[in-house]
């Protein structure tokens, strides 16, 4: 019945830690890989359980915004859309934006929402916001398929530029994870985060060229705005899926660097405060 213990048990020293030692220890993450998988699976399964429309919501959210934005910004306000049909122009941006915004909204609450687990069981806490992100990837995949279908139906043909999508998704994911881990860690101590995040997402939406093209900005500002990693992602998505205009590599490059910085800064902060979560949550 009892199986032999698979490896020689190793000794772990439990002691006060200083510095950055936890999240950034891949060995530790690997040891808990099964749990990471189960948490991601749970987040995916639970997301649309007992909803009428299920995963349709993954598509409905960006499509709904597309309709509203097309009506108000496209038709009434006549916002420029780089010569593209406004609905496509906004949908191509809304798909990555929805992924990012949901990861931020749900991820920043993930530790507090799972406080029963956090205060009772040890596991690398990073799995909580990371699980949300993984579950968001499923939504992203669904809405991406719909986006490409709509583009084809509209009569546009995506070019080879579409191959840059994985890179753009990685940039968005890194930015989302860096921000949501930091926010979730702060949320453990200060529940103010719950009220700040929805507001922050609204602001961030307008700081990102979702309803307008980034070409609306004058030059030093257009390039500088790519410090917001979602600028490169959104403009990149338009270029990659609608196959129009020149490749915005300048924006993507700056955004990528910025996403990497946000990612590591967020993780470093998370790492620094992780040890106290169980005492405060």
């Amino acid at each position, binding site marked *: 019945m009892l199986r032999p213990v698979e490896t020689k048990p190793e000794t*772990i020293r439990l002691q006060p830690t200083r510095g950055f030692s936890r999240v950034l220890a891949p060995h530790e993450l690997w040891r808990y890989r*099964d749990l990471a998988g189960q948490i991601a699976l749970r987040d995916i399964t639970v997301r649309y359980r007992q909803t009428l429309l299920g995963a349709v919501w993954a598509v409905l959210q960006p499509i709904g915004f597309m309709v509203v934005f097309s009506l108000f910004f496209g038709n009434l306000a006549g916002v420029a859309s780089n010569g593209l049909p406004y609905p496509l122009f906004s949908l191509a941006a809304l798909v990555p934006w929805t992924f990012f915004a949901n990861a931020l909204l749900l991820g920043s609450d993930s530790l507090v929402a799972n406080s029963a*687990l956090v205060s009772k069981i040890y596991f690398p806490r990073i799995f909580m916001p990371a699980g949300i992100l993984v579950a968001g990837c499923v939504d992203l995949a669904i809405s991406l398929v719909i986006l490409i279908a709509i583009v084809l139906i509209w009569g546009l043909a995506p070019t080879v530029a579409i191959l840059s999508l994985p890179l753009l998704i990685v940039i968005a994911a890194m930015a989302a994870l860096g921000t949501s881990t930091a926010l979730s860690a*702060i949320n453990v101590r200060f529940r103010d985060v719950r009220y700040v995040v929805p507001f922050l997402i609204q602001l961030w939406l307008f700081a990102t060229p979702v309803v307008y093209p980034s070409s609306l900005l004058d030059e030093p500002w257009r390039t500088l705005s790519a410090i917001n990693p979602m600028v490169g992602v959104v403009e990149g998505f338009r270029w990659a899926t609608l196959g129009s205009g020149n490749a915005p590599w300048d924006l993507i490059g700056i955004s990528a660097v910025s996403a990497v910085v946000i990612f590591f800064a967020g993780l470093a902060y998370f790492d620094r405060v992780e040890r106290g979560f169980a*005492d405060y949550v």
Partner: protein
Amino acid sequence: MATTIQTHALGKRYRLGLYKRGYGTLREAIAEAFRRGGPDESDYDGPDFLWALRDLTLAIEPGEVVGLIGHNGAGKSTLLKLLSRITEPTEGYADVTGRVGSLLEVGTGFHPELTGRENIYLNGSILGMRKSEIRERFDEIVEFAEIERFLDTPVKRYSSGMSVRLAFAVAAHLEPEILLVDEVLAVGDAAFQRKSLGKMTEVASQGRTVIFVSHNLAIIQALCERGVLLQRGEAVADGPVKATIDQYLASLEEGASKDLLERTDRDRRGYYDTQIRRVEIRGGGDSPPDVVVAGEPATIAIELTEQLATMECRVTIVNGLGQPVTSFDSEISAATDIRDPELGARIECEIASLPLLPGRYRIDLLLKAGRQIQDGLQAAGFFEVQPGVIDGRPTPAAGSDGDIVLPHIWRLPP
């Protein structure tokens, strides 16, 4: 063979009051997190801090089954939390060899929207099992929990008994080298409790290292060889389980003999419009307090600080192993009860013939007024029952089962 758990001067300090100076604002907290060399160490022994555990050095050998005993707030759960890595020590360190599984509070990590099947996998991996292990033991778990028919029903539709059984079943099938068990055996109905206890006995005899925390001293005594007594975060006794339990019981009585108003148990609770000052039990005549004779009349007298309207009281008598024997509640009234305006801030309960077997017992009290709990105190008093005659029969010699004798009449062939 090397020790399984070795702690060296282990200590854990908690901050009382979350928003005191120094961490009050978000800005300070961020600054604190990035300060070189960690937080400011001054003033850590001040009144804002509580050492839940201090200077604990303990070695546990492989295969030992150890019971942790102590009052609420003595540091038992803190020690388990440190060993299971939920929280970090403030000072000292512990070397832990082998995989640790913890069975803390049944059902942690169940997700109500997921089905029983999905929850077995989720909860199993939360408790530290590999996916392959769970698959291997899946049928066993389901059978133990007795939920075959409801495997694909979301857990939120389970009765509370079902979800508790499932949670325990998952946890009980853990196979780590070190198992930490915190007060989890009191779940389910009597039949399931017996089954769980049987499972724990099996676990304890498999040569695994187990640390038990329970307030049920009978369970501790039955399962463990070694007992460690914690008091205010320090280990004050460590040895054979029986000796440690005796020392714990002695310390409880020491606490009870003091003025009850000075007691500041963490689990003492209530509105305190009136408080329990003193409790004693007296036999007939001028026998000394707290010594009564089996079968004789006895009066439990409770002195309070204030007399309030509509006061009610509940007395629970608990035996030497921490198991409740019986309780009486004045809220369930009888025609023979008396409301006496002359009594003052005092409640009395008269027992015509004490049906308890000889031994030491403890009194737990719960005092209510106007439907609110005013004061609740465990181990408010202790008393000794001496051998006597219950209902015409002498009390049996030591070694009989149970704590109580019911009035009874035999009918036997001549």
